[in-house]
C-alpha cells in the first residue's frame, strides 16, 4: 500500500448461506487484511463449524453472541489494502429483519457487493439488496455469483442470473452493475481469472474493486459547506470549520451564507500546514471570510449561482430503525448536516414493500420498514435531493425522549415542490403541487431566483424597480395593495412559484402581513425594506435595492448579465 493509494468503501449484502462471510474472509486473506495470529485463533476456535480447509467465515463473525448463534447480526467494519487501494468493508447481515443494518453499511459505501448463490439464482432477498443499494445511492454494484464450483462453472447458470438481476436492477434505477462468477471457498475469480471459467473474460473481483472510478462520482460544482464549529481563539481570528460536502473552495471566491442570504468572499483557507490554495471534498477545512458576517454552527456556505432548496417542508424516503413505531405528528429531532431541529412526519404517503416494491397505505412505521413521507421542520433546512448530494440530502431522526436514533432519511428529488398550503378566497392550493417544471428549471430560464420585495409608501420606487429589473431581463410584477391587501402575501407567493420577482407596494405598514409574506416567500427570498433607511430619491433607492437583491443571490452579479454568461 503506497502513501498515495486511494480509499474505497464498500458494503456486502447477502443472506446467511450465500457465503458472504467466506467471501470477505477470502478477500481479507488475499488482500493481507488478516494477521497470522487471528488465523491461528480461528483454527483453534471452539465453535469451528466446518471441517476441512480454513473456515474464512470465522475471521469475520465478531461478537460472542453471534458466534454462538452462527449468524452475523450487526454491521462490522473490516479493512484490507492492496498497493492501489485501501478498502473499508461494511460487512452487513442480509437477514430479513436487518434492513436497518444493511442501510447503515450502505450509507457510506461507494460500491456494493451483492452475493447470489449460483444454485439458487435471483431470490426475493437479492432484489431486496438491489433495492436498498439503490435507495442508499450506492454508485457501483458488483454482483458476485458465488458457489460456481457447485454448478460445475456452467456459463448458462451465470448468464441466466445476469439477465434476471439486470432487469430488476434497471427497474430500481441501478447503473454500473458488473457480474462475477466466483467461488469464495476455492478462490475462483477473486484475485485473478480462473481457469475454470474460460468463458468469462472480465476482471477478477479484486481487480474490479481496485479500478472503479472514484473521481467521476464526486460533485465539484455545487458548493455546499455546512459550518460545523466556529473557531475563535482570538478576537481577530474567526474561522468557520467544516467538511466540504461538494464543490470547490478557493480564496477570492464569492459565496453565499445561508440562512442569511448574505454574499461575501473567501479570504483564506488557513490550516495547520499553511494556507491552502484550494479545497475539495471530502476535505475538512477552515474558512475565513472577507466580511464580518454572523455565522454559526448549522449555517451553510453555498455557491450563489447554485443554491440548495431552503424549506421547512420536503418529501423523503425513510428507513425506520427502531422497535418503537414511527408515527405522523409526533415530535422528533432531525439532524441534517450540522443542524439539529425539531421535526414531525407530517404525512406518511405510503409504505414500500421491499420485496415487491408495492406501495401500501400505512398509519405507522415498524422496524425495518421503508416509507415515502412528508417532513415538516421547525426551522428551514438547506438541502438537495439525496440523488444529487448524499451529505445535504440525508438526515437522521432521533427520539427526543429515549435519545435513540430511530430513522434514516433520504430527501427526494423535488418533483413535488413542498410549499406552504395556500388559500386564496375560495381557491385552495395544496402544499404538494406535483410540479412538472422544477424551480431549478425556472431559474435556468429566467437567470434569477424568485423573490418578494416588500415596500411601504414608495409607489413610484416600486415602478422604477420593476422597470430596472425588467430591462435587465427579469420576470417581475408589481402588486399594489389598493384592494384585497390581505391577499398580497399569498399573491406574491404564487408569483414566486412561477419564478417571478414580486414587488409588493404597500400604502401603510402592517407588520403581521409582512411577516406572513416572509414566511411564505422564505427568509432568503424576502426583502423587507425599512423606508427610513432608503435614500429619498427613487433612482438612488432603486440602486440600493438592486444591490440588495444581488447580495441575496437573487440576481446574478450585474457584470455577468452584461457579458451574458450562462443565461
Amino acid at each position, binding site marked *: 500500500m503506497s502513501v498515495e493509494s486511494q480509499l474505497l468503501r464498500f458494503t456486502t449484502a447477502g443472506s446467511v448461506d450465500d457465503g458472504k462471510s467466506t467471501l470477505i474472509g477470502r478477500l481479507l486473506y488475499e488482500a493481507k487484511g488478516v494477521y497470522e495470529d*487471528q488465523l491461528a485463533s480461528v483454527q483453534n476456535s471452539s465453535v469451528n463449524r466446518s471441517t476441512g480447509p480454513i473456515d474464512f467465515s470465522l475471521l469475520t463473525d465478531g461478537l460472542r453472541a453471534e458466534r454462538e448463534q452462527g449468524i452475523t447480526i450487526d454491521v462490522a467494519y473490516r479493512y484490507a*489494502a492492496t498497493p492501489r487501494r485501501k478498502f473499508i468493508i461494511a460487512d452487513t447481515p442480509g437477514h430479513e429483519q436487518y434492513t436497518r443494518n444493511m442501510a447503515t453499511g450502505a450509507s457510506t459505501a461507494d460500491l456494493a457487493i451483492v452475493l447470489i448463490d449460483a444454485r439458487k439464482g435471483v431470490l426475493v432477498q437479492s432484489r431486496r439488496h438491489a433495492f436498498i443499494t439503490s435507495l442508499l445511492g450506492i454508485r457501483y454494484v458488483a454482483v458476485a455469483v458465488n458457489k460456481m464450483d457447485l454448478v460445475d462453472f456452467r456459463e448458462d447458470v451465470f448468464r441466466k442470473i445476469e439477465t434476471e438481476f439486470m432487469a430488476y436492477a434497471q427497474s430500481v434505477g441501478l447503473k454500473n452493475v458488473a457480474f462475477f462468477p466466483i467461488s469464495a471457498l476455492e478462490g475462483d475469480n477473486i484475485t485473478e481469472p480462473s481457469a475454470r471459467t474460460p468463458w468469462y473474460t472480465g476482471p477478477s473481483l479484486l481487480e474490479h474493486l481496485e479500478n472503479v472510478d472514484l473521481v467521476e462520482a*464526486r460533485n465539484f460544482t455545487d458548493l455546499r459547506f455546512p459550518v460545523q464549529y466556529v473557531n475563535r481563539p482570538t478576537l481577530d481570528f474567526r474561522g468557520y470549520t467544516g467538511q466540504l460536502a461538494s464543490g470547490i473552495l478557493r480564496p477570492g471566491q464569492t459565496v453565499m451564507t445561508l440562512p442569511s442570504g448574505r454574499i461575501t468572499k473567501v479570504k483564506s483557507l488557513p490550516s495547520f500546514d499553511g494556507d491552502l490554495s484550494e479545497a475539495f471534498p471530502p476535505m*475538512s477545512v477552515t474558512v475565513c471570510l472577507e466580511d464580518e458576517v454572523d455565522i454559526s*454552527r448549522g449555517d451553510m456556505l453555498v455557491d450563489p449561482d447554485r443554491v440548495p432548496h431552503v424549506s421547512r417542508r420536503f418529501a423523503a424516503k425513510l428507513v425506520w430503525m427502531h422497535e418503537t413505531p414511527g408515527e405522523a405528528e409526533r415530535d422528533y429531532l432531525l439532524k441534517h448536516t450540522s443542524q439539529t431541529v425539531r421535526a414531525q412526519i407530517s404525512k406518511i404517503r405510503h409504505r414500500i414493500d421491499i420485496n415487491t416494491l408495492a406501495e401500501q397505505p400505512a398509519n405507522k412505521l415498524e422496524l425495518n420498514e421503508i416509507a415515502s413521507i412528508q417532513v415538516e421542520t421547525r426551522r428551514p433546512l438547506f438541502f438537495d435531493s439525496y440523488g444529487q448530494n448524499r*451529505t445535504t440530502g440525508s438526515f437522521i431522526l432521533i427520539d427526543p425522549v429515549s435519545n435513540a*436514533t430511530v430513522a434514516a432519511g433520504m430527501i427526494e428529488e423535488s418533483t413535488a415542490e413542498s410549499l406552504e398550503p395556500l388559500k386564496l378566497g375560495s381557491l385552495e392550493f395544496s402544499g404538494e403541487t406535483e410540479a412538472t417544471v422544477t424551480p431549478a428549471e425556472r431559474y435556468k430560464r429566467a437567470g434569477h431566483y424568485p423573490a418578494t420585495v416588500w415596500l411601504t409608501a414608495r409607489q413610484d420606487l416600486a415602478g422604477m424597480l420593476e422597470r430596472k429589473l425588467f430591462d435587465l431581463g427579469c420576470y417581475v410584477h408589481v402588486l399594489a395593495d389598493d384592494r384585497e391587501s390581505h391577499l398580497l402575501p399569498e399573491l406574491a407567493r404564487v408569483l414566486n412559484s412561477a419564478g417571478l420577482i414580486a414587488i409588493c407596494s404597500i400604502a401603510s405598514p402592517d407588520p403581521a402581513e409582512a411577516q406572513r409574506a416572509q414566511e411564505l416567500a422564505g427568509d432568503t427570498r424576502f426583502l423587507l425594506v425599512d423606508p427610513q433607511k432608503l435614500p429619498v430619491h427613487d433612482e438612488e433607492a432603486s440602486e440600493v435595492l438592486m444591490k440588495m437583491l444581488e447580495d441575496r443571490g437573487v440576481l446574478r452579479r450585474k457584470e455577468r448579465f452584461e457579458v451574458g454568461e450562462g443565461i
Partner: protein
Amino acid sequence: METRILSHLRALEAESIHIFREVVAEFSNPVMLYSVGKDSSVMLRLAQKAFHPAKIPFPVLHIDTSYKFEEMYEFRDNLAKELGLNLIVHKNQAALDAGANPFDLGTQKCCAQLKTRALLDALEAGGYDAAFGGARRDEEKSRAKERIYSFRDKFGQWDPKNQRPELWNVYNCKIEKGETIRVFPLSNWTELDIWRYIEVENIPIVPLYLAKERPMLVRGSSIIPLEHNYPVKEGEKPEMVKVRMRSLGCTYCTGAMRSDAETLPQLMDELVQFKRSERENRIIDHDTEGSMEIKKREGYF
C-alpha cells in the same frame, strides 16, 4: 483537468477531523484519553489540525497505572509542555496504596482496578460527557462492530446488542445526565495507516517503538522488560536483546519482540512481512477467548 482526489490517508484525516469538531461543537465537557502510545500521538496531531490556530480545546487525561515505562512518562511530560496541553493524570491511588500490582493480583484483576476502575472514576470526577479514545476497529474482532460514537450507560458499560445505528457522518450526540459517549476518531484507521501517518507527518513517538539493545528477561517465547522490580525466578538472568515494543501498555503486560527495525520504514517493512496483529503481545487479551469483549462490557476502553 487535474484530478482532485485525496489519498486514503488524507481521506481518513478529514474524517477524523470532522469527528473531533463535531464532538467539541455538540458536547459541553469532552476529554481525550491519552495513553502515550502511537495512536494517542496521532489523535493529538489530528486534534491540533482540527482546531488550528487555536490550542486543543479540551483536557487530555492519562490513566496512569504507575507501571508504565520510564520513557513513556518523560515523553508525556515533554509533549504536554511543548503543545501546551491541559494534561490530567489520574491513578487509582487507593488500590495502589493497598498494594495492587500485576505480579500478585494477576493481569485481569490488576487491569480491572488500575485501568478500568481508575478510568471510570476519572471520567466521573471530571464530569465529562464525551471521551475520545484511540481504539481502532482493526485491532480485535469485538471492536469491528464498535460505533464511532459509542454510547455508555451511567455505569460506563457498553451493550453490543443495543447500539445506535450510525449512518453517513451524521452522529447522534443525545444523552442523559450521567451517560457518556466514547468517541473513536481513529475507528477506520489500521495499524499500518497509523505508522504511515506518523512517518508522513513526522509525529513524535516514544522511542520504545523502535528497535534497540535493551536489558530483557527471556522466558520461553516471551521477552519481558525489567522495570518496576519484576520478580525474577531463580536462575533467570537479564540479557541484552535487540527489541522493540509493538504496543505500549504496562511494562509487565507488554511483551517485547526481537527486531532490527531502527527506523519507521524498517518498522513498516517488518509489519507487512510479519503480519502479527499488534495486541497479540499484550498478555491481557489472551486470558480467555473473547476477553476484550468482556472487558469492554465492563467499561474498559
